[in-house]
C-alpha cells in the first residue's frame, strides 16, 4: 500500500492505495466520495465518469497511482459555492433528466465536459457524445433535453413535443 495524493474538488487529499487500486475505488473507499458509481466494471456504462485535469474519464479504467498529483473533479464538487445546484445539475432537475439517480453523476460529469468543448451542441451531437453513458430509466429523452437546456438552448422546442 502506498500513500497517494491528488487534488479532489479543490482540496489536497491523500489515501492508501495498492498498485491495482482503481481511481473509482480510491474515491469511493479511500476518500468516502460515494457519488461516483460503478455500473459495469468494463468502461462501458459511464456511471463512474469524473474529470481528471479537465478531461472526462471513466474512473474505473484509471489506476489511482497513475493520476497522483492530478486535479480531479467529481459529482460532489459540481454544486455552486453556496451549495445550490450548478447549471448542469439544475437543468437535469428542471427537465426530469434522472429517475433512479444511479447513472446521474456520470451523466452530469460527461455533460459538463461536453459543454466545455462544445457550448451549443445540436441534438445529434448531444446524443453522440452521450454514447458512453448508459441510462436504463429515462429513454434519454429528458437527459438530452437537460443537456440542451444547460447549453442555453430552447430544449422544449428542439424536442418538438
Amino acid at each position, binding site marked *: 500500500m502506498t500513500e497517494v495524493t491528488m487534488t479532489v474538488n479543490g482540496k489536497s487529499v491523500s489515501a492508501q492505495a495498492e498498485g491495482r487500486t482503481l481511481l473509482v475505488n480510491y474515491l469511493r473507499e479511500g476518500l468516502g*466520495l460515494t457519488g461516483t458509481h460503478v*455500473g459495469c466494471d468494463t468502461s462501458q456504462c459511464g456511471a463512474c465518469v469524473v474529470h481528471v485535469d479537465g478531461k472526462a474519464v471513466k474512473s474505473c479504467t484509471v489506476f489511482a497511482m497513475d493520476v497522483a498529483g492530478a486535479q480531479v473533479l467529481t*459529482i460532489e464538487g459540481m454544486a455552486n459555492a453556496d451549495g445550490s445546484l450548478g447549471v448542469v445539475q439544475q437543468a437535469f432537475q428542471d427537465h426530469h433528466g434522472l*429517475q433512479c439517480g444511479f447513472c446521474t453523476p456520470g451523466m452530469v460529469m460527461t455533460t459538463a465536459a461536453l459543454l466545455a468543448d462544445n457550448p451549443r451542441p445540436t441534438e445529434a451531437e448531444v446524443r453522440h457524445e452521450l454514447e458512453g453513458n448508459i441510462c436504463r430509466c*429515462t429513454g434519454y429523452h429528458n437527459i438530452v433535453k437537460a443537456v440542451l437546456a444547460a447549453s442555453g438552448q430552447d430544449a422544449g422546442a428542439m424536442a418538438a413535443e
Partner: protein
Amino acid sequence: MPKDTGIGASTKRREDIRFLTGRGVYTDDLSLHGQTFAVMVRSTVAHGRIVSIDTAAVEAMPGVLAVFTGEDFKDVGGNPAGWLINSRDGTPMREPKRPVLAHGKVRHVGDAYAAVIAETYAQAKDAAQVLSDATVIEDLPAVVDMRGAVADASNRVHDEIPDNVCFDWGWIEDNRAAVDAAMKAAPHVVTLELTNNRLVPNAMEPRASIGEYFPGTGDYKLTTTSQNPHLTRLLVCAFVMGIPENKLQVVAPDVGGGFGSKIYHYGEEALVLAAAKRLGRPVRWTAERTESFLSDAHGRDHVTKIEMGCTLEGDILAIRTETLANVGAYLSNFSTATPTFLHGTLMAGPYKVPHVYVNVKAVFTNTAPVDAYRGAGRPEATYSIERVVDKMCRELGLDPFEVRRRNLLTPDQFPYTTPVGLVYDTGNYQATLDKAVELADVAGFEARRADSAKRGKLRGMGLSTWIEACGIAPSHLVGVLGARVGLYDAATVRVNATGTISVMTGAHSHGQGHETVFPQIVAEKLGIDASSVEIVHGDTAKIPFGMGSYGSRSLAVAGSAMDRAIDKIIAKGKKIAAHMLEAAEGDITFADGKFSVAGTDKAKTFGEIAFSAYVPHNYPLETLEPGLEETAFYDPANFTYPAGAYICEVEVDEGTGKVDVVSFTCADDFGNVMNPMIVEGQVHGGVGQGIGQAVLESTTYDENGQLLTGSYMDYAMPRADDVPFYTVDHSCNTPCTHNPLGVKGCGEAGAIGSPPAVVNAVIDALQRGGHTHVTHIDMPVSPNRVWQAINA
C-alpha cells in the same frame, strides 16, 4: 392552466437534489465498522455434477475468514415460487428446490455453489478464483433450447423432472373446444410463429446486499437492493432461513432501478446473513456487471404460435396461442405467474373477440432463471396480438387503423368481461387511437416517406393498440389463480405534534419519484404545504407492511392505502374539532386545511387540531384517544387497465439492414395523473426499453449454455443515439372506477405497447419497399436479420 402544486402539478422532484450532488445512499455506498467482503464462486459450465470443492486450498490465504458451500445450506429451505400453477390435467406444477448455494449439481453458468468471505474485497476475489480452480465439476450435457428440452427426456435439468416441463397450462381449458370450433368456422385464419426475445433487465445499479447480526439481541439486519423489502423478509424468514420475522430488519435504501429484477429474493441475501452470524461481523456483497448478467432474473423468452380467426372484413372471431415459456434452471419468485396470469389473461387485447384460448408450457433449461421484467407477460401478449393483427391486415389487404377501429371495444361496452377472465372497468380506446393518429401526423406520412426515399431509406409506419392489467392485485382473485401471498398494500400517516407529516408507505421508490408525488396527494387532501410531508419507505422496521413496487402498483394500491389513511385522519380530526368548537361532529366540514362548523366562521386549522391531539388539554379524552396517526391496508377490488395507441416510424437501410427509429408517438390512458412530468418520464423510459427489445437487445446462449452476451461489450443496451425524442400524451383519460384516486398506473406501458409498433413499422417499410416476401422478422430486428430477410 396547469397547476403548480398538489395533484396534477409537474412538481420537480425533491429526491433529485441528493442524486445530483452525489449524496444518494445506495447499498454499496455504506461502509460499516468491521465489515468483511463476500465474493461468490459461480459455475463456469451450464450443467454439471459437483465432484469436489477443495476449501482447504483457500482457507489459509491472506485475509480469508470463511468459506461457504452448498453443504452449509443443505438443511435450510429453498427459495420458493410465489404462485402455484396447475397443469391442464389438474396436476400441480413441478417445483424443484432452489437452494441458497448449489448443492450436488450446478444448473446454469453463474449458478453460485460457494462463497468466500475475506477482510478485503481484493482478498475475497483472489480466493474465489483459487477456489474455482480447486473445484472439480463433471460436465453434463446442457439443456438450452426449449424445444429440445421438451423433446429429449434423457437430458434433465432436474433429475426428478423427466420432460423438463414445469407445467402445461390451459386458459381457459373449458373454452378450448368452443375456440377450436370458432377457429375452424372462421372465413380466414392468420398464423404467426414468433419469438419474444430473452432480455436482461439491467438496472444500472448492480445487486448488492449487506448482512449484519447483533449477538446481544439475536437480531439480523439485511440491507439490500430490493423493490419490496417486506416480501424479501417474508421469504428469508418463513421459507429459507427460519429466522422469526421479528428478528430480521430488511432495509432497501436508495435503489438504482429495478424493472422487476429486484423484486425477487436471491441466495446472496441469505448468504450474507448466515455469514454475518458466523463471523460476528458485517458481510457485504456487490455484484459485478457480468455477475448481474449471469445471475439476475432475466425477462421474456417465449416461443409462440398464434392463430387468429377472422372475417374477410377483418373482424376478429377467435385467438388461439401455444407458447413455450423459458423459466431457466430454477423457479424465481414470480416466474410461474408471468407467463400465465400476467400473459394469458391479456390475450384478448383491447378487442371484442369472443373466443380466446391460451396454452403455455413452462420449460426448465440450463440458463439463468427467467421472471417478470418491466411489463411481465403483458408485453409478450401484446406483441403476439399486435403482430398477428398486422399480419391479418396484410393478408386481407386491409388498413391497420381501420381494422383496429372495427375491433376495439367501445366506451359503452364497459364494464366488459373478457373471454380470458378479466373485467375491464373503463376505457376509451378510440380516443387514444385518434389522438395518436393526430399527434403522429399520419396524414403526412407519404410526404415523409418520399423524403426518406430521396435519402435512400425505406420508411415504414407501425401501429399498436395495447392494454394491460396492472395495479396488482385483488387478493381474492389472485388467490384463486394460485398466488401464495395477498397483494394489498399499507400506509401509515403520522401527523406529528407540530403539524408536519410522515407517511410510511409499503411502496418502494427506485426511480419512480414517490418522495415527490405522494406528498403532492397528501398536501392536496389536507390543504397543507407539500414540503411539510415526508415519505418513509424501504425499511421493515419503520413501515407497517407492504408488498413493494412492481406491476405499476405503487399509486393504485399503496397510494390508495395512503388515501384511506388520510381519510381516517380527517375523520378523527373532525371529532377533535367538534369538541374544540363545541359543535356536533356532523356539522364539521374539512376543506382547505381547515375544520369548520358549517354555516359559521368558527374554524380550527389542521395544525391546531394536530397540536391538540398531542397536547390534549381541551380534548374529548373520555371518548377519543390522543395522537393523530392512522394506518390503512388497501386491497384493490380489481386490476386497473391502462391502455393506449402507439405509432412508430422507422427508416431501414436496404444495403445494411440497419433500422433507425425516427419517431415514436404515444397516446395513453392512465386514468387520473398525479404528476405529468413523472408520468411522461415513465413512458419515455418504457418506450426506450421497448425499442431496445425490438431493435437491439438479445440475450444469447450458445449450444453449451455459455452466455455470449455477458457484458455491455456484447449486450446492446439502447444508448442516446439509438432513440429519437418521443411524443407522449395522456390527455384521453378515463379514471379508474374502483380506486379512490382514479389512477391506473404508467410504469410498464411504454415497454408493453412499443415493441410491436416498431416491428410492424419495419415490416411496413420492407413491404412498401417491394420486399413483399418479408412478413415477419424476430426481435431484435438487427441489421443482420433485416438484411437476411431482405435477401432471402
